[in-house]
């Protein structure tokens, strides 16, 4: 039901073709589409009903994320469901922002990571004191379209969650274009005014939970990317002829296609199982481990499927004109965000070791 309505909504809007047009325009998302998604209840899917959501859990969020992935939609669905609402519904479920986000009136991006001197991730040092932020944040997805930023910073008494408006004074946003045309931002604060929303250890806990949610939902989005990339490629090898035959009649092509399909099915089954289990699991460490399992699988599969898809298309696969390249690029971006497969296997293994040591 949820799957059908999400699919219909995206198909009516123009599927991957719409995503291409948006990429060619500005690389952002379509505000009308954000409102339509909101009307369908998409953003509040995991928010409890008493806080204005559908109260359906992460598995339902995964269904939507898969559909987003299928049409490589640029709208900030996973980011909103997983991160911004993931943080707010845990820390301040009655805040007026909740309703505005669920209704699609506003989009907030989450900012918690920081870049170190060698370019890689570093310990957080961004400070919040006297209503002002100082420091910087990195790897912020949705930085160009968001109306504001949910920033996790160090306050006087531990971590705080604050809201900085995108138009705030003394806030500079450095945007980098990603492979799929979306932009990722780096924020610099120099006494930037921001409103405190929550403080204390609960902020750290909520952040970790929100990251687990977003990681698993990204895995679901990658499953959708893999599904479409595979279907497009299957259609192509059935119709493209060489040596007077469809190339899909050659056994080497057939076996490669089968292997990609098996990989896709394993990823879909694994990720869906994880999302269902995360809904009934309350221990944050086990939820994080599950999310890592999902992302590791989904990224491995999506990378392999989209790259082989290019090979199976041959030269036209390397052109921008064919949609298959859009899927390759989205897979690149989603794999890198929140940790790739190698990273998550490491995290998953360490968590498994820790569980083993406890038992």
């Amino acid at each position, binding site marked *: 039901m949820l799957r059908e309505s999400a699919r219909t909504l995206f198909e009516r809007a123009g599927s991957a073709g719409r995503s291409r047009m948006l990429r060619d325009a500005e690389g952002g998302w379509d505000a009308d589409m954000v409102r339509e998604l909101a009307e369908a209840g998409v953003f509040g899917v995991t928010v409890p009903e008493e806080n204005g959501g559908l109260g359906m859990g992460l598995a339902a969020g995964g269904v939507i994320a898969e559909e987003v992935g299928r049409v490589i939609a640029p709208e900030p669905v996973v980011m909103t469901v997983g991160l911004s609402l993931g943080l707010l519904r845990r820390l301040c479920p009655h805040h007026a922002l909740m309703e505005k986000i669920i209704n699609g009136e506003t989009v907030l991006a989450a900012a918690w990571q920081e870049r170190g001197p060698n370019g890689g991730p570093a310990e957080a040092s961004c400070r919040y004191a006297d209503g002002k932020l100082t420091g910087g944040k990195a790897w912020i997805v949705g930085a160009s379209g968001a109306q504001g930023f949910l920033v996790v910073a160090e306050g006087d008494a531990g971590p705080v969650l604050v809201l900085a408006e995108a138009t705030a004074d003394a806030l500079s946003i450095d945007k980098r274009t990603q492979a799929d045309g979306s932009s990722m931002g780096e924020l610099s604060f120099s006494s930037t005014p921001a409103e405190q929303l929550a403080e204390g250890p609960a902020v750290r806990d909520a952040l970790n939970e929100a990251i687990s949610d977003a990681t698993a939902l990204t895995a679901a989005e990658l499953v959708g990317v893999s599904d479409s990339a595979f279907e497009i490629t299957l259609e192509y090898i059935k119709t493209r002829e060489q040596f007077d035959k469809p190339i899909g009649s050659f056994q080497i092509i057939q076996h490669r296609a*089968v292997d990609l399909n098996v990989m896709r099915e*394993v990823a879909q*089954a694994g990720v869906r*199982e994880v999302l269902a289990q995360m809904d009934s699991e309350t221990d944050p460490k086990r939820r994080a481990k599950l999310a890592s399992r999902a992302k590791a699988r989904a990224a491995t599969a999506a990378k392999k499927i989209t790259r082989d898809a290019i090979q199976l298309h041959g030269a036209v696969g390397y052109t921008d004109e064919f949609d298959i390249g859009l899927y390759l690029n989205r897979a690149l971006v989603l794999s890198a965000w929140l940790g790739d497969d190698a990273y998550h*296997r490491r995290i998953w*293994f360490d968590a498994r070791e820790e569980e083993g040591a406890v038992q």
Partner: protein
Amino acid sequence: MTDWNTLSDAEFRKEVRGFFEAEYPEELRNLPHRPKFAEIEHWHVKLHAKGWVAPAWPAEFGGMGLNAAKLLIFYEEQQRWGVNRGRDMGIQMVGPLIIKFGTQDQKDYWLPRILSCEDIWCQGYSEPGAGSDLANLRTRAEADGKDFVINGQKIWTTMAHDASHIFMLVRTDPDTPKKQQGISFLLAPMDQAGVDVRTITTLSGETEFCEVFFDNARTPKENLVGELNKGWTMAKALLSFERIFIGSPSLAQNALVQLESFARGRGAFDDPVFRDRFAQAALDVEDHAALYSRFADQLKRGETLGADVSMLKIWVTECFQRITELMIEAAGPDGGTIGPLQVGNVNVDVLASFYKARPTTIYGGSNEIQRNILSKAVLGLPG
């Protein structure tokens, strides 16, 4: 008679597990080789007395009458406790064939003898020129008075040297437009002058496979099962349940447990490269199990499985092989040594696992054949 299907899955699982744990002989757990019947006879007697020899057969023929869901549980528990399948060709293949296509006389005569293991069966399908291309088989059966006279050769016949009877696909009409036609299903006694069995020594040094030569061997005409020249369709009909069973996660899961305890003992986890490859293998097993559950749920809802179930076999057998290869890697300089390797207080026979994994991608329809099937039946690719 108990209708097992009325129990909840959990109750049934408890019942099966309880019986295996209480009654299965300890010395037969996780046998590394296929036993001759004499070695497991004492277990078969118990199983027969319990009425559990044939879990899939309908109760009216002496089986447990399990539905697909319960059957899956039965096999899962069997594998979990390392219960040997016994000499089950009669149970798995001949019985269902006779129940489905046999005459009343055939049912009355053969089925009780299969259950009691008075007859021990082997399967004569493959031939030197008919492996993946099974329909290419050439072993002939020609009518001669009251008998069929059989000439030809079967190969990879598992445990033929310990079997009293063979069920076989034979060519009864050599002049058909398609080679799938003209094939019949025949039962024949092994104990006769025209049948010669030679064992084949495998890479692991075992002799469970045989060649069987037929030189004017005879079998009565009433041992034809089903219609003459319709054997191919019948053989295919038998394979439907086997296709999920052969893709079950247990072989890879058990190997992973072995790998972990061995690698831990050997300190292989100190190496980050090994850790990553272990994590990959472990996740491959977990995610395969998720896909397996999806198919198992289909069976539980009473649906028929499609050709797509073949993907389970491809994934799990190749995963099983990678796991055993990691075991060899963890063994370091012992990686070429035959027999159990002692690590702490566990013994792991690294090469035995490795060898056990190799034929899994060949038997039951090689993985390449499975890919052909998926390509045509599931992806709809031409040619």
